[in-house]
Structure formats: structure tokens, C-alpha cells
């Protein structure tokens, strides 16, 4: 928005040439991050008290770990504020003509709404377990993924025609293959899997938000490089004109995430709820696809993947099929807690892990 404003003004008034700065992605990114952060920090306390007054708090979650009982009564749905602030910051700072940004925003909002419905269902049922049914959630996510995939294959796709259906793998300079029939199903599955992985990770105070912010920032860096003709050529990454705009979104997201962390750090004053975790998941998935780093996500989002995999293996293979536990507990953070680590220690150790993974992912830019 400011971008357009700046365009208008610059043409008219030489004196306002300082607004030329707004052409720079980096400036707008920082602006978006600060805006999102400040908005979140200002709105969140009021929202927290609002939720308390309406009784929209967490129903007791019985995770079998003693600290869980202290979480009952904490408001949920902080993700809604986060999403709102990201939206506001983007609308303010992003270039409204960028199709990439609209794709991510739409996906984020769609997933956030699914999560919000689930949270409200859980609250109405007065139980932490019985929210919306699994098949229904998957169907709605699948619908979003399908629309996204259809859009990528359509004439309105943001990718340049050559890159529309290419599939890249880290460390390899050239595309692995380029075929709509192979690529689109991969994207579909990817969006659905990642969408849920963050949900599983959101179990301890502050656990999901920092790795997400890191992952999103790294994807923003990728976006910046791929949108820049010189740098993309230098690093052997495909050139996707216009994708650089995504870094403004990523910055806004990181800002809002840190703002959320302000309140979510242990002991948390608010949880992000399914609204937040599904929104983040959707965001990450769509971002990864838009910067063509689907496989890299296995490394970058390795924490989320590990949490999701351990959870599914323990549940589907162990408990339901073999009739025994394969690990002490699942997902990963519960396993760590069961062996005697305090919640705060688990969270910080996993932050360290995700930082290392993020740095490794950045390293893949150079190691090609």
C-alpha cells in the first residue's frame, strides 16, 4: 500500500525522493516486521483479557506430564491475532500487484479459518481432544491445496512459463524434472502434510513459534535471492521475477511471531491454538512451493517433520498395530520431557536444533 502511495508521490514531488527507499524490498521488509511486531504486542494483551472474559480458554489437556495441568485456563486462539497482524502489515507494506503475496495470504487465512473452527469446536465440546473431525479437517485442507495446485497450473500462475512445473532438489543446480503431472501431485501432498506437522509441534510454550519464524525467514532469504536477477544467477537458483516480494511477507510473519513469543514464552499467557498452528503450516507449505524449495523443507522444517513422524509412528505403527509403545512417548518433545527434561529446557534445545537446521539450509545456497 505504502508502495503505491510512494509511487504516486514520487512522481509528483521531487522533494519526497526519500520515498524511493520504499522501492527497496529490504526497507519494506524491515518496515513490515516492525509494524507486525508492534501491532501484535499492542493488540495481544487486550485480546487476552477479552478471551478471559468470554471464557474462551484451554480445556484441560491431559498429556500425562505434570506441567500440563497448569495450562488449563490459558486462552487459546492467539494465532488469530498473529494472522491479523501479518495481514495488516502486508496490506500496508507489500506491493498489491504481487500474485505471490496474495497466494500466501490467501492460503494462510484459509488454514487459519480451519484452525479457528477447530478451536471453537473444541471449546464448545469442552474437551481438548474432540474438536473438528480429522477427515473434515483433511478435506478442507485438501481443498485449499487443490485450489493452490490448480492455480499454479493455470494461466494466472505467478511462475514464469519455463519454471511453472520444475522440481528442484537442494545441492543440485538444475531442475530434477519439469512436468506438471509429476510436480502437481507432489505439491498437493506436500501442502497437506506440512499443514499438520506444525500442529503437532505446538505442544509446549514457545516451541512452535521460534522454529516457524526461523524457517519463514530462511524462505524469505531464498525468495529475495530468487527475485534478484544478479544474485539468482550467481547462486545458480532459478530466477522467478517478483518472488522477492515474499520477503516482505516473511518479515511481517517473523515480526508477528516474535510479538507472539513475547506473550507465549513459559509460562504462557496465550496459546496460538489450531488457528495459529494450521496457519503457520499452510504458510510454510505455500512459501516452500513458491520458492521451489519443497525438498529443502525436509531439512529446514526438520523439527516439524521429526515431530510429525515420531507421532505417527508411535501411534499408527506402535499403539494401534503392534500393540506396544516404540518410544517412551510421542511426539518428540514429550519423549524429551519423559526422560526428565523440564519444559523450558526442551523448548530451548529444540530452538537450538531448528537454528542449526536453518543455518544448514542457508548453506545449501552456496553448496551447489
Amino acid at each position, binding site marked *: 500500500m505504502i508502495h503505491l502511495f510512494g509511487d504516486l508521490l514520487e512522481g509528483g514531488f521531487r522533494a519526497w525522493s526519500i520515498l524511493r527507499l520504499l522501492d527497496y524490498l529490504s526497507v519494506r521488509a524491515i518496515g513490515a516486521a516492525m509494524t507486525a511486531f508492534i501491532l501484535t504486542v499492542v493488540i495481544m494483551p487486550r485480546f487476552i483479557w477479552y478471551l478471559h472474559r468470554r471464557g474462551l480458554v484451554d480445556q484441560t489437556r491431559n498429556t500425562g506430564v*505434570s*506441567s500440563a495441568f*497448569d495450562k488449563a485456563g490459558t486462552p487459546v486462539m492467539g494465532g488469530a491475532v498473529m494472522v491479523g497482524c501479518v495481514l495488516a502489515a502486508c496490506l500496508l507494506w507489500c506491493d498489491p500487484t504481487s500474485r505471490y503475496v496474495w497466494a500466501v495470504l490467501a492460503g494462510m487465512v484459509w488454514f487459519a479459518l480451519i484452525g479457528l473452527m477447530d478451536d471453537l469446536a473444541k471449546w464448545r465440546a469442552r474437551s481438548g481432544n474432540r474438536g473438528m473431525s480429522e477427515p473434515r479437517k483433511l478435506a478442507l485442507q485438501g481443498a485449499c491445496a487443490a485450489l493452490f495446485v490448480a492455480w499454479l497450473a493455470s494461466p494466472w500462475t505467478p511462475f514464469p512459463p519455463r519454471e511453472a512445473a520444475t522440481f528442484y532438489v537442494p545441492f543440485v543446480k538444475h531442475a530434477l524434472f519439469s512436468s506438471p503431472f509429476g510436480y502437481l501431485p507432489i505439491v498437493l501432498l506436500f501442502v497437506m502434510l506440512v499443514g499438520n506437522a506444525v500442529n503437532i509441534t505446538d505442544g509446549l510454550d514457545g516451541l512452535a513459534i521460534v522454529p516457524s519464524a526461523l524457517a519463514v525467514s530462511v524462505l524469505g532469504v531464498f525468495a529475495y535471492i530468487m527475485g534478484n536477477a544478479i544474485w539468482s544467477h550467481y547462486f545458480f537458483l532459478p530466477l522467478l521475477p517478483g518472488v522477492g516480494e515474499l520477503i516482505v511477507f516473511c518479515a511481517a510473519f517473523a515480526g508477528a511471531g516474535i510479538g507472539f513469543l513475547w506473550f507465549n514464552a513459559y*509460562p504462557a499467557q496465550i496459546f496460538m491454538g489450531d488457528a495459529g498452528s494450521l496457519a503457520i503450516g499452510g504458510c510454510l507449505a505455500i512459501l516452500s512451493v513458491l520458492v521451489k524449495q519443497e525438498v529443502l523443507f525436509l531439512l529446514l522444517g526438520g523439527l516439524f517433520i521429526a515431530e510429525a513422524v515420531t507421532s505417527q509412528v508411535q501411534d499408527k*505403527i*506402535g*499403539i494401534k*498395530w*503392534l*500393540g*506396544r*509403545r*516404540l518410544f*517412551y512417548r510421542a511426539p518428540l518433545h514429550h519423549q524429551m*520431557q*519423559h*526422560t*526428565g*527434561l*523440564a519444559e523450558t*529446557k526442551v523448548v530451548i534445545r529444540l530452538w537450538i536444533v531448528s537454528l542449526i537446521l536453518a543455518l544448514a539450509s542457508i548453506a545449501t545456497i552456496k553448496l551447489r
Partner: protein
Amino acid sequence: MKVFSRILLTGGGTAGHVNPALAIGRAIGDDRSTYLFVGVRGRAEAVVVPKAGLPMNYVRASAFPGSRPSLSWLPFLFNLSVGTLKSIAIVTRFSPDIIVGTGGFASAPVMLAAALLRRLGLCRAGLYVHEQNAAPGRLNLLVGRLADRVFLSFPDTLAAFPVNGVLSGYPVRRQIQTVDHDTARASLDFAVPAGRLVVFAFGGSQGARTINRAMVDALGSLLPYKDRVFIIHGTGLADSGGSYDAGRDTAARLDARYSEAERRAIETFYVARPFFHDIERVYGVTGLAVVRGGAGTLNELASLGLPAIVIPKVNLPGEHQVMNARALERAGGAIVLYEETRLEDGRAVEELDGRVLASAIVHLLDDAPRLSAMSLASRQFLQHDAIEVIRTTLQEEDAGKVVSGAQAGAIAGVPPLLSPAALLPRLERAWAAHRSSYRVEIEIPARGDRTYYVSRATSLLSDGRWELRNLGVKLVGLLQARDKLPLVLALFRDRRPAAWYKRLLGGDFEQVGFIRRNAVTAIGRLAVVTPDVEAALLVGISDPYYEVRSETARVVAVLEGGLSQAGRSALVAGLVTLLTDRWLEVVAASADTLGRIGGEHDARPVLLALESHRYWVVRAAALRGLASLVERGCAGDLAELEHHLRRFVLTATDFRPEFAIRTSYARVIDAIQTRRGSTS
């Protein structure tokens, strides 16, 4: 008296529905009435109704496939739709004055068609339903609300049909009149000695394997009473299509179990026949019946005032035989014995222990007043002339009088029986709330219910699916069924390996990890210590699955009061080996238990050795164990102990948070409770 001239009857699918329909039909019409019976080809009604001389029409219907949507719903819905359409045509063409349905899936098409036509105003006939069981069948539940009246056989069912239910009773076959005792005796083709209790055991026209086998097994235990009982055993006709040849099976069993001499003694008080053509003559001499729980049978017996030992067939839809039996038992007219399932040559077989049956008979033998009380109770409970009630109701309806629903007083229904899956959470919550003061008698006060649940749980132990075996094991412990301990131990000792692909991914035995762990928990809850139990615990200590090892360690502490000297030393030695286990949960549990059962020389040194274990959880458990040793006075030199303790590493990676605000909140609430408690 109003007589209906065009009568449409429907009911069937299974046999128990057809005879009541015929009885009612005959009662509400006369020689000039036109009848039509609608049923399903190839089912019971296809055989019985033509023999009774009524015209028959066939429609399509199939049995209800179960409440979870699955592929078998497609043929079910198809058949139902086609059948209903054809029924609409039949009803329109026949234009009956009255439609009577007695339940069973064969009546579904006609009932649905009738309901629809009445709603559309195209059919003026009265729609009546008769329910034979205490627990209403699924179809009758659905259609009953749409009917003008639902005639009920048991008072318990009134709760299900509060608006239009009428307690009529069961229309028994006309021929079952009371036959004089002496006439009856004279007419039988075998001699019934005088002055004995005559027990008549039968399981329907095709026999009931459980009853037949139990009866034969019981004969041995009844030999001492051979001068006081006489047993008439109706074994049933050979089922030409089926696998059970009642007569041959029974005779073979008799030969196999008893020696020549015993058999000769048995013959003095036992006679077996496949079938009795005039069963009322046998009823005439009978003092006690041993039967299944079918509504028809129970009602026949009740109308004659015969006390009964009922062995209901379990696992039927809605458990209707069990519910009928319980209803009669509650009223004092019957004793219920439950059959149990076990595996025989890989197939699930129901059986009842002959000794249980024998002891039930002997108890009644010695208790004549009880027998006559039962006789009176059953006569009172079910003595209605159903036909008369039905006729009267129809007449009053016709005359415009409104018959009130909840007749015969407000008799509280039998509390519903829970399925094992529903029972489990209830008992688990109770256990968690009461722990050592848990008594299953408090949770389930009725002894008959407890017996039923125990028999169901035991049957689950031999199910093919591990989830159900698991459920059975948990329930046996929670139901405190101490006599089933050997079964739990057998399950635990079963070390058959699992399929190879499961073993690749972490599986071990057919009796999966959860089952073995819950078996150990059940052993703890049953609180009986025998050499077998001690042996099992020793096996549990070296089980491949970690949760079994840790649970065994925990249960040893629970059972420590009953351990033998030798058992205790063996278990202590075993637990010491667990202290070097890879899984910290196991080490911690062992440390805790060693503190409770060990002593200065075996437990103390190993517990002290844990002073710098990697995991603080284990170190904390070791300290708890040492505390137990000190409290029990088995810790040896205390000064030396204190000195060693200083070497314990006390840094930890976890803590228990205390939220001051929550503590203050709890304090206020407590204060209020105390205040309230002391001033009231």
C-alpha cells in the same frame, strides 16, 4: 366383539417372531376373515406359515448389517427399498383393516410401507406392533413410534414406549394348557418315579449345544442325588444342514465321560429324547426347567408357573436373551447362569461348566420354599392372557377410548447392561478415585450383573483380535474376578511369536506388549499371590517389552505382603538386574520397589550405586527407595548411610513449578470447604 376381516401379518426373519404373529392373527379374526402374511423367502416364516394354512407373499429384506457404515449397507439398503416398494403395492392391493407386525427384519418392508401410506393418508388400517423381548428389537424401536400401539411382553419395555406401549404379555401357543400331573405322567413313554424333583432341560427344536453339554457334564456331580432328582433331557433334532448333531454329540459325550458303572447309575435318574411331540405333557410333570432365554420359552414357562434355570445365549443383537433372563431373574422367577467362550481347536466355543449347573440344581433341590416362591414370582410376572389384552385394547381403540400407555404401574426398567468397552472407563475412573479401597461390589452392586460382565470379559480373552483380548484382561482385573486368575496367567505365559513382518518393526509376541503389561496390572489388582503368580512375575522381569518390566516391578511392591520367602529373594535378585536396564522407567520402578522389599545387604548397596546415574529421575527413585529402607528399619548403619548419601548428584534438569496464584486459590477453596464442613 369386533372381528377384523382383512388382516395383514408380518414378522420373521428369525423364528421367534412368527408364532406370536400367527397367534395374534388367529385371535383377532374368525373363520370368515381374510389373512395375508408377508415375509422373506427362505426364512422361518416361509416354512411355518404355509403349514399353518395362511396365504403368503414374499418381499425382499436382509438383516441389519451393523451400525457402522460399510459396504454391506449397499445390499441391505437395496433390498429394503425394493421390499418396501413391493410392500406398498401389496398393502394397497390387499387393503387390510389392520396390520400387525411382530418384529424381525422380515417385517421391515411392510412396516415402513404401512407407515408411509398412513402418513400419506392412503391407508386407514390400524398399525400394531408386538415386541416379544425385554429389550426392544431395533426395528420395533424404529417403527414402534409410528404405530398405534405397541404390545409388550415384559414390563421392563414400557420405558422404551412411554406413549403407546401396552403391557399385554406374550401370546403363547394355544395348546400350552396346564396338563394334570398324573395324566401327564401316565402319558409319557418313560417312567417318572414319584417324589422326585423333575428337571426338564431343553434348548429348542434343534437343541442347544451349551445346555446339552453342560447337562451331561452335570450328571456326574448329580450322582449323589440320584434318588432325589429325575432329569428329562430334550436334546433336539439333528440339524440336517448344520454342523451340530445334538443327539449324537450328547450320546458321545456321555459315553466318553462316564464309566460303565456310572452310566448305569445315571440311567436311573436320566432320560434323553431328541424331541417331544406334546411338550405340555412333559411340562405337566416338570418341577424345574433348564432353558435358553428366548422370549417365547420364558413366557410359556411363566404361564405355567414353572421355575427356571436360564442359560441365555450371549452375543445376540441387543443381548435380548440375556435381558429377558435378567428381567425374569430380577422378578424372582429364574436363576441365570452365563456361558463363557473359549477356544477349542481354533474355534470359539461357548460352554457352561457342568458343575455350576449341577450346584444350581442341587441348591434348589434342597430349598423347596425357594422353588415355590420362584414359581409364584414367575407366574405373577408374566401371567397375562396376552390374547385377551390385545383384543380388549383393539376394541377400546375402535370404540374411540384412549388406552393409557404406562399401564401396570411404573415398574422401573432393568438398568441397561453396558458393553465391555463402555464398562471399562467407568471402572477405571472408579479405580483411580479409590485405589486401595476399590471394591467392584460397590461399583456394580447386582451380583447377576457382575457374573455377566465376568463371563463377557473371560470370553474376550480368547478373541482373535488383540485389542479385545486387551480389553478382556483389563476388565478381569477391574472386576476383581479372582477365579479367573489362571486364565490371565496363561495369557501372560503365552509366548507364541508374532508374524515376521511385525517382528521386524518392533513386535514380539502374539500377546502384544500392551496385553502382557495389562495382565501384570490385573495380577496386581486381583491381589492373590500363589507360586504361579510369583513365577509369572519372574518371567515379567525378563520380558522384552520395557513397560512389562516396569509394571512388574511396580506390582511386586503392591503384592509384597503375600510373597513367599523364596519368591521374595528370587524377585529381589531379579529386580537388582533391572537396575542396569537401558530404559530409565524400568530402573526407576525397580529402585522404588527394592526399597519396599529389599534389605540392607541386597538393596542398599545397589541403590547407593545409582548416585551418579545419568538421569535424575533414576537418582530420585533411588533416594525414594533408600527412604523406604530407612523407614522400614532395614537400612543398616544410618551414619554410614548418611555419609554415602552426600555423594548423590542432586542437580536435575526438571522441576515442579508452583504457581503462587494457584496455590492461593486452592487455599481459599479449602478454607471455604472447611468452614462449610465445620458449621454444618
